[in-house]
């Protein structure tokens, strides 16, 4: 998979994963199924990262997204038990889903046109970036953003804990 020098047949597979998973994620009635759709998509994207010889990002995708974020979302579903209550997109507002399709399709198509028209020339795949270099960047030029993201994470966690505690006290 790391000798990519063109379009790999696996690309098709991953694309199918992405599209089908994404469709399930936005269309499924049950939220847990939507979540499984999301998981499939995440795997597809991870596969694409692998195709682009960026295994670090691919594994991080699985570790963070699949291993942590989806689990969190699952927890949210479980705690609020919204699976049956969720009536999905089709019930009631046809107008709204029409609007949604319109908005999504419009912006996507415009962007697609831009992408196709003004895409810079692609170069053959560069050799895999070493972990060491990534690390140097993260502590060098990216240090500030790295710190920022950790602060954001910390604040988010503290905030979540605080919110959770407020709930217990309220009772």
């Amino acid at each position, binding site marked *: 998979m790391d000798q990519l020098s063109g379009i790999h047949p696996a690309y098709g597979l991953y694309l199918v994963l992405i599209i089908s998973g994404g469709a399930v994620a936005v269309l499924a009635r049950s939220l847990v199924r939507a979540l499984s759709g999301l998981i499939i998509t995440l795997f597809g994207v991870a596969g694409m990262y692998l195709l*682009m010889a960026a295994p670090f990002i691919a594994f991080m995708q699985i570790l963070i997204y699949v291993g942590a974020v989806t689990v969190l979302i699952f927890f949210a579903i479980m705690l609020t038990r919204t699976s049956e209550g969720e009536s*999905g997109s089709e019930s009631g507002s046809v107008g709204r889903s029409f609007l949604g399709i319109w908005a999504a399709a419009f912006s996507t198509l415009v962007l697609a046109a831009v992408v*196709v028209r003004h895409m810079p020339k692609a*170069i053959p795949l560069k050799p895999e*970036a070493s972990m060491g270099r990534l690390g140097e960047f993260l502590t060098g030029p990216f240090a500030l953003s790295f710190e920022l993201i950790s602060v954001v994470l910390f604040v988010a966690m503290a905030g979540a804990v605080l*919110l959770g505690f407020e709930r217990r006290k309220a009772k």
Partner: protein
Amino acid sequence: MNYLVLYHLAALILFGLGLYGITCRKSLVGMLISVELMLNGAGLALVASSRLTPALDELGQLGTLLVMGLAAAEATLVLAIILIVSRRFGTTEIADIATLKG
């Protein structure tokens, strides 16, 4: 059409699906899932751009990494908010929570 475009189109599809989900999903959790889809699209585009153009390689990868970190933080916070909302309103459907009462 070169393969950079292909990756970008895949990213765009994710973005479009996410956008559609955000507008049409009725529950907060559904919207969160859609947001994750869009974030993934962004990440995919970033990595593709950095890997397949002369741009700095690490830039895209680290950018995506930061996006992932953000997504995790966001998910944590949204989870807490969803919990609060569901406790207070008994539902997580946005239509029911739209009233601007405290």
